């Protein structure tokens, strides 16, 4: 964020300045009373060629909250997540309908610079993917790309980011070693450090713990709680207990089968406080999924 309360997602063409939404701007009863809306998703449909992968999703992602997306395979949760930082742009046939407003700015507005979007909205993937570089260079990569050159500044960012990812104490004496030499859990925390080094506002996590053992998973989950006061986190997880443990709100997606084409389309069934979803969900389909009566 460039200034307090003001955000810019363009660095080409006219800059769009956006004031943070006020509580009174809330477009629905569930908005803003609990926190600023970062993403306002309206009637979102995502197509891959002629095939509609997700249909008419509506939800708000709130600032400094952890939002979990759960649902069976093919329900569109990762597809929706990837819309938040325009990762679907890399898929030629992908097309988005509806709107995703990020602090009031349409993310898919042609004036919006998708690279800047990805700087503000970082991503951590299922498989830890450190660059084949040193631990230091992994974290310094983003800031260097952004133009940071002074060693003292870079040192500072690297330390801050590694501390932020709860990895500093484990690697501070071997920053020149390859990131690929770390354990799986450490590599994933390195990726989180790399994501937060460019000072994003949002971190998207696509099944960040599915390749990790339970202890490494617990570390990442703890880390998420620690950093959520600074970031807004959206996590896709196959592990319902993980969603229950870490998230403030949960969105449950499922699939609908088109009887004619036999193709499956993802739909957002229910979006509510996590404690509600896992104690007394409002939709029968959510109930059946979380209790394991449907899969």
């Amino acid at each position, binding site marked *: 964020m460039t200034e307090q309360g003001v955000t810019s997602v363009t660095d080409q063409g006219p800059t769009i300045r956006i004031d943070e939404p006020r509580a009174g701007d809330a477009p629905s009863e569930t908005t803003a009373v609990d926190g600023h809306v970062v993403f306002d998703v309206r009637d979102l449909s995502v197509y891959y060629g002629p095939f509609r992968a997700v249909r008419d999703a509506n939800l708000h992602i709130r600032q400094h909250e952890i939002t979990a997306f759960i649902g069976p395979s093919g329900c569109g949760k990762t597809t929706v997540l990837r819309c938040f930082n325009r990762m679907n742009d890399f898929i030629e046939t992908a097309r988005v309908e509806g709107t995703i407003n990020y602090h009031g700015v349409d993310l898919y507005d042609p004036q919006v610079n998708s690279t800047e979007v990805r700087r503000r909205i970082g991503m951590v993937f299922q498989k830890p993917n450190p660059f084949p570089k040193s631990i230091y260079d992994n974290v310094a990569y983003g800031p260097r790309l952004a133009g940071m050159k002074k060693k003292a500044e870079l040192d500072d960012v690297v330390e801050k980011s590694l501390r932020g990812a709860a990895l500093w104490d484990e690697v501070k004496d071997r920053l020149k070693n390859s990131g690929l030499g770390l354990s799986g859990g450490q590599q994933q925390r390195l990726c989180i450090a790399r994501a937060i080094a460019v000072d994003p506002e949002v971190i998207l996590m696509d099944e960040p713990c599915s390749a990790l053992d339970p202890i490494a998973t617990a570390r990442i*989950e*703890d880390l998420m*709680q620690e950093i*959520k*006061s600074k970031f807004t986190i959206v996590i896709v997880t196959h592990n*319902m*207990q993980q969603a*229950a*443990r*870490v998230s*403030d709100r949960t969105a449950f997606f499922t699939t609908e089968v088109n009887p004619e084409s036999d193709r499956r389309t993802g739909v957002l069934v229910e979006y509510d406080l996590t404690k509600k979803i*896992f*104690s*007394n*969900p409002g939709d029968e389909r*959510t*109930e*059946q999924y*979380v*209790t*394991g*009566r*449907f*899969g």
Partner: protein
Amino acid sequence: MDELRRTYHDDLSQAKDELVRLAAVVTESIPRATAVLLDGDLEGADYIIRGDDEIDARALDLEEHCYQILALQAPVATDLRQVVALTKMVAEVERSADLLCNICKAARRIYGHELDPKLRGIIARMGEQAQQLYDAAIESFVENDAAKAAAVDDMDSYLDGLQKQFVQAIFESHAAGRIDLQVAVQLAVVARFYERIGDHAVNIGERVRFVVTGWLPEHKGAARFKYRTDVTGEIPRIPAASLPDAADGHD
């Protein structure tokens, strides 16, 4: 639709069935305890009192079974409410069985004393009403019927009324010299036992409503308290709990 986690759901069903079995034993024992009291059936009293150990053992097993389900299966949503409700309901059933023992012990204490027809009539009606309450509560549990469960609370007021009538009849009987003070006290306590069995049935009904809807009657009191503290500025009497901040809750 594919049924997943079948073993776990069978496990849950077994826990539910066990609660129903234990509650059925209590329901059937209510008329027996009443007969013990009215007929001075000392053997029957012994049978019910000895049987309580078995209820205790089975209730303990069921409670441990529930803890196992919680620890191993991490139930959520309706399943979670059901397991939590079972741990509460089993305590209600176990306590009701204790109260039936107490009725039998009272029957031993007043053995040989004649009771007048009015007292006997009200005792019989209290027994019948307590049994009906228990029946309705357990039926509502078996059928997951929140409306039937809510009716148990209304049915209980009739039993409460019988208790009041009975206490009045005890006074009259004692004043007329038909029962001595010791018997009068025992009978008053017996009336209280029936009334408490009814209350336990009501509590079971409330837990059934919780399983079906997630609602508990205490929500009403909590809402009144919130209104008084928020709107009228009433100061809570209990020091606030120092709950961890959500952000620090995972330390």
